[in-house]
Structure formats: structure tokens, C-alpha cells
């Protein structure tokens, strides 16, 4: 009973934060003057301009997916299959562009390739390209795709690496006995990990469709920015919703395909996690290519953006000014980020439990169902939350005018993520540890407190830190819902960008980078400790 009530409560909370706003929003977009109407949808699908916007979104997603794969698949291969030196350093560095908010990398590259940018000057001097054409490239769909690929290629890389490490090495060994590396990679390895790669490409495609920060920064007209404009410039929330419709339809469709087809398949082929190691190719030339390739990516994705920002911030006084300017933002970001991460961890804990540990017919449907919401664009969530909470009566008004609407926004955006993280940790703990307590007649709360929570310690810390990182960088939802005086750092950054000197913008960007990388550092530091713990624990939890 305790269990049912608790889990029911948190599931209801999830429905309220994530599901309700979206459904509500669509419901209202279908009514006009109190009656049922398709008028907003008709406008969209019949207007040439909107068709162009939809196409733009698709082009952005397609190019980003292609570029991310070009960088991510080889990077994953070199990490998993060769004797690349400094492998872990490379891996962690490659995570940085994914961890720090995407628009930061955008700001850096825009500085570099903008009309007065260093690289622009260099290129226009030594090549026939004009400064305008270079700058135009940056502020175009192609530039946006380039930046977004830097942000998202780690997804492809990680999933490729994971898949490669999970192939049963015997399958490749039996090929190596008879053939060359090329043959084995082409005919055995690649087909085996193809589903995992396709799946990762699909995730990148979906995430690029719902990206708001970079298109907004580079003034590219796509669906997410269009929703924002309709809502905040024209106060036309119904039109905003109607524009969101094709976006959500496409993403949810893809998400279902990904879940049903690829996810199932990749597990089927890879089978159980192989405990017998991974084949590593020892060839010298392969290592050399790996070093060159990874260094190139490293420079492009990490060194260039971060150095640009550092050089751009010029003096210490820039940081001083930035701090002064963003004092409130920094304070809010830390506070809201912590509250958001705590909310996400607690609710994610129970949702993860629900999707992994509860035996019911619902179980198999809940997990992918929660995951679906990760694809919902931030701006859509923002509009939906305002729709639900902006009403005069009681609790809603309280939420609407306070920091809690930001927390709810974080919840709506990242609950799918935090619950997924928790679910993965729950998967590693055998049901019998809990049943041993049940048989002894302990109450569910006592079992939670004494057994489940302590065993999940690492998962809880990981979920909190990752949630915090994402909350700190959140832009798309916050920018729509934040009440006056409650702006967070990304909002400050976007506001000052228009009218502040470049050095302050760079300094602010680096402050955000610091605030996201610090938790990552903590995470890595403790994961070392927990890994040794885990090795011990796994001896007991056979």
C-alpha cells in the first residue's frame, strides 16, 4: 500500500509536469471562439513560409546527423578498438562539448568566424573568400549544423564505443583467423553494431530537431525558434502550439521507431554484456590515424571554442564586470539548479523504480513512454507550462509567479533523462535484495531507506550531478517561463549578448562552462571511488 501510493504519487507528478502541459496546449490549439477548429493548423500547412521553416528544421537535423556520425563513429572506434594513448583523457574531453550548453560553443565559433573574427580575417586574407561570405556561412543553416554537430557527436561516439565493447570478441576472433582487419571490420563488426549506430543517429536527429539555443543564437529560422517568436513576440500561443505540432509529430514518430525497432534489435544482436573483454587492434598505423583523428576533433570541439572564449575575455576585469552583471543570475542558477536537480533525482528515482522494478503489464510500456518526452522541444514545454499555470486561481498562480515554474520546467525537460539514469542503476540490482527484506516483513519505506537507497547511492549522486549540469545550461524553457527577477545565467547571457562588449560575453560564457564542468569533475572523481566499491559489491550481488 505504501509502495502503491508513493509510486502512484510520483507518476502523477510526472504526468502533471510533463504530460499535462503538452496535452493541454494541444487541446487549446484546437479550439477557436469556444468551438473546435483547425484554423491554426490550416494556416501553417497552407503557408509557404512555414513549409520553408519545417524544411529548414529537417535540413538542420539531417546535416547535423551526418556530420555527427562522421566524427562520432570513428572516434568511438578508436576509443574502443585501438591502443590509442591517453584514451580516457580523449574520452572525457570529447564529452565536454556535449556537457556544456550548445550555444556556448556557438558563441565561440561565431566570435571566430564573425565579420571581425580572428579566423575570418585569416581566411579572407589567404583565400578568395570574402569576410561577408564567411560570416554568412556561420549565420546559416550550415553553420548551425556544424556547431550542433560539435555538441551532439559525443552521442554517436559513446553509443558506438559501447556497442563495440559489447561485441562478443569470439565473433571477431573467428573472423581474424581467416581474414584481414578490413574484412572483419566491414563484414563482422560493422553489421553487428549497425543497429546501435543507427539508433544513435536517430537520437541525434531528434535532438537537433528540438534544439533551440543554437538556431536562436545564429538567427536561423527553424520550428523551435518560430515557436518562440510566435509566443513571445506576437503573443500568439495557439499559433505557437500549431507550429509545435509537426515537430512533435516527427520526433515522436522517430522515437517510437527507435524504441521499437532499433533498441530491441541492437540488444538482440549484441546479446548479454560480454565479460570476456574486447579485441583491440595493435597495428601501429591504426594508432597513428587514431591519434591524428582524435586530436583534430579535440582541437575543433574543445580547444578552439574554449581558447576563443578565453582570449575573447581578454582581461580579468571582464570577469569582474561579468560577475557584477550576472550576480543575480549566478545565484539563481546555483539555487534553481540544485532545487531542480533534487526534484529530478527524487522523482526520477521513483519513476526509474517504476519502470524497472515493478512487475506489471504497464512496466514495458512505461519506460519508452517516459523516454518519448525527452524529444519534446524546450520551447514547446515552456509554452505548455505557461498555458497550464497562468491562471488566476490558487496554487497555479503561485507557481506561475515564482521560481517553481522554472523547477517544473526543468522537471518537464529532464525527467525522462534522470529517470532513465536511475532505471539503469536499478537494473543492476537484483530483485532478491529487496525481496529478502520483504520476506522478513519489513515495511516498504524501511526497505527503501535501508536497502534500496543505500544500494543506489552512486546512481543517486550521478543522477543529481547530471541533472544539475543540464539544469544549469537550460535555455529554451526557462527563457519562456522565468518570472521577472528570476533569470538564470543562460538568460543573462542571451540578454547581454545584444548590447554588451564581446569580452564580457566571453567571460560570462566561461563562467557557465565552469559551472557545468565542475559537477562533471566531481562526478568523475567520485566515480573512481564508486567503481572500486562497485567491484566489491558485484562480488556479493552475483
Amino acid at each position, binding site marked *: 500500500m505504501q509502495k502503491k501510493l508513493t509510486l502512484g504519487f510520483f507518476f502523477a507528478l510526472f504526468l502533471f509536469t510533463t504530460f499535462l502541459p503538452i496535452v493541454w496546449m494541444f487541446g487549446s490549439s484546437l479550439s477557436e471562439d469556444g468551438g473546435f477548429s483547425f484554423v491554426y493548423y490550416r494556416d501553417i500547412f497552407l503557408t509557404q513560409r512555414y513549409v520553408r521553416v519545417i524544411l529548414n528544421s529537417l535540413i538542420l537535423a539531417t546535416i547535423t546527423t551526418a556530420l555527427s556520425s562522421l566524427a562520432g563513429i570513428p572516434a568511438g572506434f578508436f576509443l574502443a578498438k585501438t591502443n590509442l594513448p591517453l584514451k580516457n583523457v580523449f574520452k572525457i574531453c570529447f564529452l565536454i562539448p556535449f556537457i556544456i550548453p550548445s550555444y556556448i560553443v556557438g558563441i565561440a565559433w561565431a566570435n571566430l568566424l564573425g565579420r571581425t573574427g580572428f579566423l575570418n580575417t585569416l581566411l579572407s586574407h589567404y583565400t578568395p573568400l570574402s569576410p561577408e561570405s564567411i560570416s554568412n556561412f556561420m549565420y546559416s543553416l550550415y553553420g548551425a549544423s556544424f556547431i550542433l554537430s560539435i555538441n551532439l557527436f559525443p552521442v554517436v561516439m559513446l553509443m558506438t564505443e559501447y556497442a563495440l565493447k559489447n561485441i562478443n570478441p569470439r565473433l571477431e576472433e573467428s573472423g581474424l583467423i581467416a581474414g584481414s582487419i578490413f574484412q572483419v571490420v566491414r563484414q563482422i563488426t560493422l553489421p553487428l553494431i549497425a543497429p546501435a549506430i543507427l539508433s544513435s543517429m536517430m537520437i541525434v536527429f531528434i535532438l537537433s530537431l528540438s534544439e533551440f539555443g543554437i538556431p536562436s543564437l545564429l538567427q536561423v529560422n527553424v520550428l523551435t525558434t518560430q515557436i518562440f517568436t510566435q509566443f513571445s513576440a506576437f503573443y500568439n500561443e495557439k499559433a505557437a502550439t500549431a507550429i509545435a505540432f509537426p515537430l512533435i509529430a516527427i520526433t515522436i514518430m522517430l522515437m517510437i521507431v527507435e524504441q521499437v525497432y532499433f533498441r530491441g534489435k541492437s540488444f538482440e544482436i549484441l546479446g548479454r554484456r560480454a565479460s570476456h573483454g574486447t579485441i583491440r587492434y595493435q597495428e601501429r598505423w591504426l594508432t597513428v590515424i587514431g591519434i591524428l583523428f582524435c586530436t583534430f576533433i579535440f582541437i575543433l570541439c574543445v580547444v578552439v571554442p574554449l581558447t576563443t572564449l578565453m582570449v575573447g575575455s581578454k582581461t580579468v576585469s571582464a570577469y569582474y564586470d561579468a560577475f557584477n552583471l550576472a550576480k543575480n543570475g549566478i545565484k539563481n542558477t546555483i539555487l534553481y539548479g540544485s532545487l531542480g536537480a533534487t526534484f529530478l533525482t527524487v522523482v526520477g528515482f521513483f519513476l526509474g523504480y517504476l519502470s524497472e522494478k515493478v512487475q506489471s503489464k504497464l512496466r514495458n510500456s512505461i519506460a519508452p513512454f517516459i523516454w518519448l518526452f525527452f524529444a519534446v522541444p524546450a520551447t514547446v514545454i515552456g509554452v505548455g507550462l505557461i498555458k497550464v499555470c497562468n491562471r488566476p486561481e490558487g496554487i497555479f498562480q503561485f507557481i506561475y509567479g515564482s521560481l517553481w515554474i522554472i523547477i517544473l520546467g526543468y522537471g518537464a525537460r529532464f525527467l525522462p533523462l534522470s529517470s532513465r539514469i536511475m532505471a539503469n542503476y536499478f537494473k543492476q540490482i*537484483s530483485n*532478491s*535484495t529487496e*525481496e*529478502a*527484506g*520483504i*520476506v*522478513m*516483513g*519489513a515495511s516498504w519505506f*524501511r526497505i527503501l531507506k*535501508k*536497502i534500496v537507497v*543505500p*544500494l543506489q*547511492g552512486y546512481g543517486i549522486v550521478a543522477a543529481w550531478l547530471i541533472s544539475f549540469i543540464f539544469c544549469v545550461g537550460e535555455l529554451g524553457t526557462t527563457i519562456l517561463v522565468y518570472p521577472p527577477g528570476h533569470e538564470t545565467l543562460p538568460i543573462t547571457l542571451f540578454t547581454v549578448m545584444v548590447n554588451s562588449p564581446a569580452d564580457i560575453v566571453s567571460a560570462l560564457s566561461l563562467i557557465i562552462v565552469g559551472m557545468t564542468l565542475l559537477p562533471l569533475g566531481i562526478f568523475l572523481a567520485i566515480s573512481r571511488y564508486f567503481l572500486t566499491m562497485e567491484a*566489491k*559489491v558485484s*562480488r*556479493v*550481488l*552475483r
Partner: protein
Amino acid sequence: MNVLEVKHVIKILGKKEVVRGVSFEVERGQLLAILGPSGCGKTTTLRMIAGLEVPDYGEIWIDGALASRNQKIVMSQKERHIGMVFQDLALWPHMTVYKNIEFGLKTIGLTRAERQKKIEAVLDKVNMKKYANEYPARLSGGQQQLIAIARAIVTEPKLLLMDEPLSNIDVQLRDDIRKEIKRIQQETGITTVYVTHDQEDAFLLADKIAVMNEGVVEQIDSPEEIYFSPGSLFVANFIGESNTIPARIVDRDKVVTPWGELSCKTNGHERGDAFLFFRPHQVQIEQNGFYEGVIMKQEFIGGRYRYYIGIPQGEIKCYNQKIYRIGELVRFSIKEAKLLFS
């Protein structure tokens, strides 16, 4: 007095009936082994007794009180007062041995001093006293096993349930732990249900064995009865080595076998197909044996040979210390045989 009564219990998982009308009872102080191949429903049955699964039909009585009837759970976990040892032991890795054992005692609300006394006593019983403050990860597999048992019996439960507790233990250790289990069970006199797929476990530990197959209890009897008088063809083939020869009943107590007509108890049947069952050691190769066959295969199994003797409709197994050539014609007799119905 029966501590456990299971009556016509049925459990459906998904669309499959995994337990199909199982009934048995366990007397106070007895150890019942539920023996069967994997997937026969034995673990599910145990989990229903523990209250971890809800039966779809049937009754479970614990110590004379109704625990569950059909899909209604009458007795809570606490009221059942059961100890359980899980297949993966399920020791809590973040708690010391002491804390692991203490958990159940706290549930029943003992004071600190009482708890300490009981924990020390039970650790003494399993000879693990010096490990009280260790974490489970620092113990060997066999020691973890003993702690899991200590944790299950410390509350002096009415019933101890063990779910294949030896399946993760090295072969050499198994024997020792098995002896320990036997000793602890006898000393504490705790009524036990022990689920296993290992015949040796069942034979060495159990007062009674229930052989399960495809969700049904095929036979409940003492180990000797199970071995010498299997109640069904499945039991005969599953337990030990056996010979089963197809036979046809032609009249009351009269069957036709590959060697011709025999008289044999047919349990009242007058027509139909059956199998003639006998163990390999009930076959004796001797000069004036009743039947004739050809040695097909010879295997040395330590101290004696196993011979496969070819007969008109198949082959039979027997043991012998003497050496016979392959292809040699031998005569043999069957000391005791029984009819089984499939």
C-alpha cells in the same frame, strides 16, 4: 502437525500456467525438497509460499492458519514469519554481517540486547562468529552462504524456504555446505522447504522429496521410495539411471514385452500401453539368465563398468565388474521390475 499445507495451487504467468494445481504438506521439523528440472514451476511455488507471488487459485496454510486463498492474500509477510535463502543469497553488500542479520530482528521489534544475544547465538550456530563485523564482499562463497542461512533463521521462523542455495557454489565446497545445512536444520528442527534441481541435494538433505515437472507434482515420497518405486515415467527417467522398456498390457497382470509375455502387476489395468521399469543394478548378467542380448557399448565408471546391452527393441543399461567384449552375446535376468504408465 503440518506446518505448511499447499492445496491445489495454480499460478499463471503471462499466458502460461506455470504451476498447475500443486498440493503438498510439510510436517513440523521435516525438510521437503522440491526437485525438478529448470522451468518446472518449483521456484514459483516457493515464492507463492513466501508471499512474493500471488497465486491465481488454491490455498496456502501456514502453521494451521490460512495464508492465502485464491487471489486473496490473507496473511501479510510479517504474519507469515518465514525465513528465506535466495538463489543469489541477496546479502546486502552495504551492511556488515551483523547488520544483515539484525535487519529481520528489528522488524519483529526486539530490544538491542535481545538482538545482540540472538545474533551471537546464530553466528555461533553457523560457526561464523568472528566474521560479525565483516562486509559480505570480504567473505568466500561458502561463508556468504552460511551468513544467508543465519540471516534467515535468526528470527526463528516457522518455516525456512531455500531456493537453490547451492547452485552458485563450487563443486568441492558444495558437499561441505550441504552437510552444514543438514546439521543446522537438524539442530534447529526448523521446518524447511528446499527447492533444487540437483538430485544429490535432495537425496542427502530431504526427509521427503516432491518431484515436479511442468507445473505438476509427479510424486511425493521418501528418497528411497522415489528411487525404487517411481510413480511415473518422468520420475523414473529424471531420478538416477533407469531402464524403461515399452510394454503392452494384454490382460490383468499380464504384459507383452520385447521378450514375450510376462506376468507383472498392472494395478488393475487390463489394456493399454505402459513401460517396464527397472534400475541398472537390478539387471544381472549370469549364465543361466532369463533373457539374451548383445553387449553394444562399455564404459568404465570407476570400480565397475556400465554396459549397454542390445535387445530386440532398444538397449538396456546395467553395471558389472567383469569385462565383456563388445559384440559378445550375454544372458541376463532382471531382479525386479515395475510397470509405469506415461
